[in-house]
């Protein structure tokens, strides 16, 4: 029998606000333990929450970006349960009036090959709500340690409908969601830093049936590949269970990335009586049309819309657009460069091949640095879009060969020098000086009278030997077009 998996995702995204959701102490990753706390974060007696307006605005932005209905009024509820990473032993969250409802995420499935666009479709969302994050527990042999730096950071929970059916779709969904959120400046969505976390609800049913199977929740899917592998494993486990006639239990399982399997987590039978009630310490949020309109004006172009525009308006090949559009910073760089450069396609190719290669190399080296530096972005890299456009235009104008340009680019990236700086420095000015070229060409003809004769005798190909000699004499710096014209004139 063939089976179909039904998958829904709960994605938690940390908003990149300066301060926490309900107090104004700073947020951040990688700070020394327990240095981002205050009375509110630690849940000290008497501490009271105060909303972060920016976190609410960012949530509205996400809602608009994903086509959700934005609530006119949303409120805060306490979700009560005891856990050492949660200082108050209740989490301020949104239960029955979330900030956003509905919405969708456009996904693209893999194409036949990397140069071919895959199928697109929409994955439906149930709701998005805002809450506060918990602290971080590290487990040791005998005990556990708690760091509350992360506690209280604004956290957006994006809940999808059970609308995905394969690990590939899950991967595509997460990729698309992440690209959109990063592009909108909501979050860096770095899974390694816990800025994007994901739980999956998975069930399996015979293909063609509509009833849902028993749902299993998978936790600890902490990397994009972890999500793909964990989901894939769990689907196989459930299918095997059905085929072997074993019952699938509704439970929560944990993905073990090292051993690559899921194991059941111990659950108390009452773990889900969260005793939600409206938080009396906070007032509700009212979101009016004017606010929504203002936020809507700041929305970035969605990555897939941008990709379609590049293909349609600039005639860029699919492969280039797919490399560009996964990274909004790269797109911004490309758009700046292409506005100055003569060929959009060449610009795109330079950006996705040469610039991207240099960037990834530069950032790879950084991993070994003592302190983790900020990653180098297209915007912060030494080659400005203007500088790249200059390079491309010199090639287009025949003043620089592609090969030389390819050699110069890494140096531009390493030193921050412009292409004209380097040409001057190295004496690489392409020889277009007619007098000088004419002299060199005349020498070449004199030195290889054999080839000259053959050309005059009608053998077109013989000119190449002469061109080669000229290029050699000029160390490749002569403009090939000028050389060709000069030789033909002198031989006629």
């Amino acid at each position, binding site marked *: 029998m063939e089976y179909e998996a039904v998958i829904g995702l709960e994605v938690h995204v940390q908003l990149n*606000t*300066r*301060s926490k959701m309900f107090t*104004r*102490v*700073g*947020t951040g990753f990688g700070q*020394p*333990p*327990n*240095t*981002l*706390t*205050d009375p509110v*974060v*630690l849940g000290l007696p008497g501490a009271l929450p*105060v*909303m*972060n*307006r*920016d*976190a*609410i605005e960012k949530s509205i932005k996400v809602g608009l970006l994903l086509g959700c209905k934005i609530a006119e*009024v949303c*409120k805060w509820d306490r979700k009560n349960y*005891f*856990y*050492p990473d949660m200082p108050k*032993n209740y989490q301020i969250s949104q239960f029955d009036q979330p900030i956003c409802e509905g919405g969708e995420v456009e996904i693209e499935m893999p194409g036949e090959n990397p140069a071919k666009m895959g199928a697109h479709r929409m994955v439906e969302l149930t709701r998005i709500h805002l809450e506060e994050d918990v602290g971080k*527990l*590290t*487990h040791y042999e*005998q*005990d*556990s*340690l*708690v*760091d*509350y730096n992360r506690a209280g950071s604004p956290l957006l929970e994006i809940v999808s409908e059970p609308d995905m059916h394969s690990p590939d779709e899950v991967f595509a969904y997460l990729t698309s969601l992440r690209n959109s959120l990063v592009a909108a400046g909501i979050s860096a969505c770095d899974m390694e830093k816990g800025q994007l976390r994901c739980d999956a609800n998975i069930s399996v049913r015979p293909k063609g049936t509509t009833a849902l199977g028993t749902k299993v929740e998978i936790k600890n899917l902490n990397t994009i590949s972890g999500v793909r592998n964990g989901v894939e494993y769990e689907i196989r486990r459930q299918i095997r269970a059905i085929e072997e006639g074993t019952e699938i239990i509704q439970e929560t399982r*944990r993905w073990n990335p090292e051993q690559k399997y899921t194991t059941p*987590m*111990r*659950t*108390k039978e*009452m*773990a889900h*009586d969260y*005793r939600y009630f*409206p938080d*009396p310490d*906070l*007032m*509700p*949020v*009212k979101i009016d049309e004017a606010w929504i309109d203002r936020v809507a004006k700041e929305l970035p172009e969605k990555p897939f819309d941008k990709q379609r525009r590049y293909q349609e308006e600039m005639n860029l090949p699919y492969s280039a657009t797919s490399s560009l559009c996964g990274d909004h910073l790269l797109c911004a760089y490309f758009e700046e460069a292409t506005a100055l450069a003569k060929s959009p396609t060449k610009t795109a190719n330079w950006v996705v091949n040469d610039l991207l290669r240099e960037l990834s190399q530069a950032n790879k080296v950084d991993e070994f640095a003592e302190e983790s530096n900020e990653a180098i972005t297209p915007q912060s890299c030494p080659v400005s879009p203007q500088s790249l456009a200059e390079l491309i235009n010199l090639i287009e104008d025949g003043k620089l060969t592609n090969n030389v340009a390819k050699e110069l680019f890494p140096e531009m990236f390493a030193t921050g020098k412009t292409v004209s700086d380097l040409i001057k420095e190295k004496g690489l000015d392409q020889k277009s000086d007619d007098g000088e070229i004419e002299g060199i060409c005349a020498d070449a003809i004199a030195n290889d009278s054999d080839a000259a004769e053959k050309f005059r005798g009608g053998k077109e190909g013989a000119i190449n030997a002469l061109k080669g000699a000229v290029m050699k004499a000029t160390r490749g710096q002569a403009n090939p077009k000028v050389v060709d014209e000069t030789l033909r004139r002198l031989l006629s």
Partner: protein
Amino acid sequence: MSEDAPMDIDYVANLARIELSDEEKTTYQRQLGDVLKYFEKLQELEVDGVEPTAHAFPRHNVWDKDESKQGFSATEALKNAPQSRQDQVVVPKVIEE
């Protein structure tokens, strides 16, 4: 409510995470049963169409701008902790729930 559905004292004590002695369980079971019985007049009340009061003087959008301020040092944060190590709070081994 107390007669037909007595409070499950073990369930509630576990929800509230309070360890109770057997004697306490008996006492609370009885006392809270009485209290719930006293609360029955609430069940008889006609409240259809009445809006709940969450705040005596409701307002909206009480918030701050997103500015970060200096908080506690790790030492201040952990000053009252019953047990700490490496600037973190020590808890007995957490069994994954």
